[in-house]
């Protein structure tokens, strides 16, 4: 087991982001974490990568309890992880080649010729060898995502984490990324965790999926099991119904009452205890 989250809870400023989350990612598998926006999926990724720590429960990565690691041990562990950020997070001072070469230059003493070969091979795998000299500002969203993917795999990680890899991409770029994720998993045996709300895309490649809603895991299983589930929340999410167990409206007073009430000093007072 590569990732093992048990009964994890996390709150910010008294507001619970999620509670009692348990999730496992098995070696060589693609695990998906799905759910509507604002349910704490990205926060869960930050927990798995020890950017934040659970206030209760335990998170283990490669068998190590993240709460017990010091900074140096954590950085050593992170060398075994590749992460694809939602906004690509390319270093804007460097061109495409240097972005992909960055982890190699920082962590290895490889000769320049070998670094060049490794980087060009990775860029070739994402179809952007010809764009090696471009700056990040010159790339489209899909291209930047592919460069970030090349950078994420350049150190041959054992675990790849994708944060919303399909957001904002056109169908062609989405298909390219999907194929790359699948290829990396099959050819290199990399364990993958994908956070996304793109049900149809994920169903094609995922071995196991978790569905999160309102800070909890409400369903888990293979894509086929989730598709056959009769749970109302799973049905709502998979069929994309606007309203259901996961409400369309952010908690608010009754519309009629609010419209007919005298204009208050602050027209948009939040409802006490409301959560998205």
């Amino acid at each position: 087991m590569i990732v093992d989250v048990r009964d994890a809870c996390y709150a910010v400023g008294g507001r619970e982001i999620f509670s009692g989350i348990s999730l496992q990612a098995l070696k060589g598998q693609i695990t998906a974490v799905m759910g509507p926006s604002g349910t704490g999926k990205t926060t869960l990724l930050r927990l798995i990568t020890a950017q934040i720590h659970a206030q209760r429960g335990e998170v283990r990565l490669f068998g190590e309890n993240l709460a017990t690691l010091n900074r140096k041990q954590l950085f050593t562990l992170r060398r075994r992880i590749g992460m694809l950020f939602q906004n690509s997070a390319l270093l804007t001072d460097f061109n495409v080649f240097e972005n992909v070469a960055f982890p190699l230059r920082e962590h290895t003493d490889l000769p320049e010729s070998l670094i060049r070969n490794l980087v060009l091979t990775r860029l070739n795998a994402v179809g952007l060898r010809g764009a090696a000299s471009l700056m990040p500002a010159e790339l489209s969203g899909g291209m930047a995502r592919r460069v970030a993917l090349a950078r994420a795999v350049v150190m041959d990680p054992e675990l790849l984490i994708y944060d919303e890899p399909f957001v904002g991409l056109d169908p062609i770029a989405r298909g390219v990324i999907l194929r790359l994720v699948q290829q990396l998993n099959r050819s290199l045996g990399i364990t993958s965790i994908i956070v996304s709300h793109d049900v149809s895309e994920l169903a094609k490649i995922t071995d196991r999926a978790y569905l999160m809603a309102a800070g909890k895991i409400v369903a888990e299983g293979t894509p086929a099991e989730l598709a056959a589930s009769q749970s109302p929340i799973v049905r709502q999410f998979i069929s994309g119904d606007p309203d259901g167990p996961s409400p369309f409206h952010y908690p608010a007073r009754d519309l009629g009452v609010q419209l007919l009430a005298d204009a208050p000093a602050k027209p948009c007072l939040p409802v006490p205890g409301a959560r998205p």
Partner: protein
Amino acid sequence: MSTTATQDGFILGSLARVGRIAIFLVKVLTQCGAVLARPSLVVNQIYNAGGRSLVIIMLSGLFTGMVLALLGFNLLQRFGSEDALGFAAALALLKELGPVLTALLFAGRAGTALTSEIGLMRATDQLTAMQMMAVDPLRYVVAPRFLGGLISMPLLVAVYDMVGLFGAHLVGVQMMRIDNGSFWSQMQSAVSLRDVTEGIVKSLVFGFVCSLIAVYEGYHSDPTAEGVGLATTRTVVASSVLTLFLDYMLTAAFL
């Protein structure tokens, strides 16, 4: 009662901020050794903070020296001692105007650039990406910029002083016809090593403070457009006020 509570809150908040900056400083200093082993990182930042500030520093130095000479000449002429202009301009520039005005310009030009650059790296997840690639942003981003600023400031002050004296010479000797020999000899005889040391110490202290504030504010800015803007403003305000305050303290200490 509420005024007292507000004052207490302000004092506690300020103390907490000083504490956070001190902890941040220790973290940055522990990374400086590793950074010095890769001088190219620091040299790039000396160019960014120092090299790119040269034009504004030189222009400002030139005009400050020229104004100083005009005012000094006008004042000294009343006492018939206009030959002392070189000495007066040199002392004013070396001890006070050079370090202080350079630090204020540095805060406005290089400090804001440092803060907004690091703040935008935070806002666009570049710092998080580095951490995920097991590269410490304090070592790779913050420490080189801090050292670059610290090293740049005394160099900029030296340039400012030189150009300032050139400006004073231009007005005093070329325009007002003060004797060239008196201008330099008065300066040479009256300016002591202690005066020069005072300028160097001030430039180092101001470089330390302005660079630290700039990288601290950038690193801790909220990852939004407004957050980066506010952090940049805080850099200029805090650097300027601290520079003027420390200048008073240091001048008093050197008397």
